[in-house]
């Protein structure tokens, strides 16, 4: 709890600092711990409902644990027509989990995302925001090896 507090306190006097604080928490933990929402509500002097409402509004924030490496697969139209579904199948197959799930060792989480702005070479996936473009089903194994 004190850890969260120290991180959040740094943004207490920043105008509109709640979202900045959530970003900082995610940089540290990769997600926003439930308890940190309560701490944020206290520090910013807002209701827990409001603090929770902000955290859950944005798709890049996640309340509660997820994997160390977040793999996002773009499903927007340009990636869709470029065969994003085959990339999804290859990732699910390689990791043995379904979209939205985390591997048992807590290493990888699979999430869908909308456009990540790398449409010059579709389909695109990102791993902790690092983009990989022109991804084929065959590439998945070697990409994942970078993170094993």
């Amino acid at each position: 709890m004190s850890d969260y507090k120290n991180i959040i306190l740094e943004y207490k006097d920043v105008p509109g600092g709640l979202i900045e604080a959530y970003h900082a928490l995610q940089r540290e933990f990769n997600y926003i711990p439930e308890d940190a929402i309560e701490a944020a509500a206290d520090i910013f002097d807002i209701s827990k409902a409001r603090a929770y409402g902000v955290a859950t509004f944005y798709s890049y924030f996640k309340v509660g644990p997820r994997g160390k490496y977040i793999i996002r697969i773009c499903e927007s139209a340009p990636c869709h027509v470029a065969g994003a579904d085959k990339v999804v199948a290859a990732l699910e197959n390689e990791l043995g989990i379904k979209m939205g799930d985390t591997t048992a060792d807590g290493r990888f989480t699979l999430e869908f995302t909308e456009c990540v702005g790398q449409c010059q070479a579709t389909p695109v996936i990102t791993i902790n925001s690092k983009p990989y473009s022109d991804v084929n089903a065959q590439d998945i194994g070697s990409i994942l090896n970078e993170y094993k």
Partner: protein
Amino acid sequence: MSEEMRIVLRNYGKIDPFKIDDYIAAGGYKALARAREMKQTDLIEEVKKSGLRGRGGAGFNCGQKWNFSYSVAAETKYVVCNADEGEPGTYKDRIIMESDPHTVLEGMAICGYAIGSKKGYIYCRGEYPYVVEGLKTAISQAKDKGVLGDFDIEVRMGAGAYVCGEESALIESIEGHRGEPRFKPPFPPVKGLWGKPTIVNNVETFANIPVIVEKGSDWYNSIGAPNYPGTKVLTLTGDVVNRKFIEVPTDTSIRQVIFEFGGGIPEGKKLKAVQIGGTSGGFIPEEMLETPIDFDSMAAIGATLGSGAVFVIDATRDVVDIVNRIAGFFRHESCGKCTPCREGTKRIEEMVERINQGQGRAADLELLERLGSTMSKICLCGLGQAAPIPVLTTLTHFRDEYQSKLN
């Protein structure tokens, strides 16, 4: 063969984006110095006369917008750069910020002087953490050099919400709230960030400003289409040989964009349709390709220029399947504040999915049209108003594809 014209991207590949001296050597920050020698009203008039219209999609006259904020007497005013580009198929703002961040800062500082603001924010989408770092580097260089004078710029990072591209939702997000659009009026130029007059302009709009100040409104006004002068940065995606970005005068036709710059359709296939302006844009059939890309010409054919994304699909593609995916996008990105959008995007997806899976009924097509036209009139913000456009335009131009899938 048509040629590109690089105004916004004039420094692309020519300077090291992270060396402010490179930018200065290329003439950078001279326009800001010149602007500060002008009377504020003359500067605003010059921007107005250039005819520059917002490059984020709404196409409002930039100088006129600035004048709204200038005219309000207030101690504190804000300049906000909308770098939340989330329109699928669009990455032009990223290219601008990565290749020439200082031109964006200079454009913002000129706007700050014009309206009487000392503080700017860049709201950059959460998908671009590397761009955020680049912008922060550029800002600290500009501060060290003292080129921005008393104008301060701060970067804020979004967190994955398409609706935050809408200016009042973006303002809510900077304030640390859920990114839900506000009721308007009052509009942000009068009452925006923390209730103060606020100019929100797109990255590409700001990148045009230094050149306009440097070369003058007459020069700018003579480029491209008279009602939407200048250039537009476009990003080509989908079934096109050259998947790349280009910057072209606004009187360039869609056909030139796809076949001259884009190199046509791969594997000698035929074009079925092109969707311009991102996922919220209308689908345009082959027979309308002679239309110039400027804002008003596009509006006249029921399409949009929007963000400048150009998504090409060849004759083998399934329009209903693509629209189904797009409908899913809007259902996901609807913020839920207003009922017609929250419910409407869900029902559109439901119906299109049913049709796509061969379970649709003839009545669904009329229901989609009724729902879509209702949403375009009564949704609170541009997201909900534009959400039905892909469905409505494909029902107009490719109705047979829907009909052939009906149960």
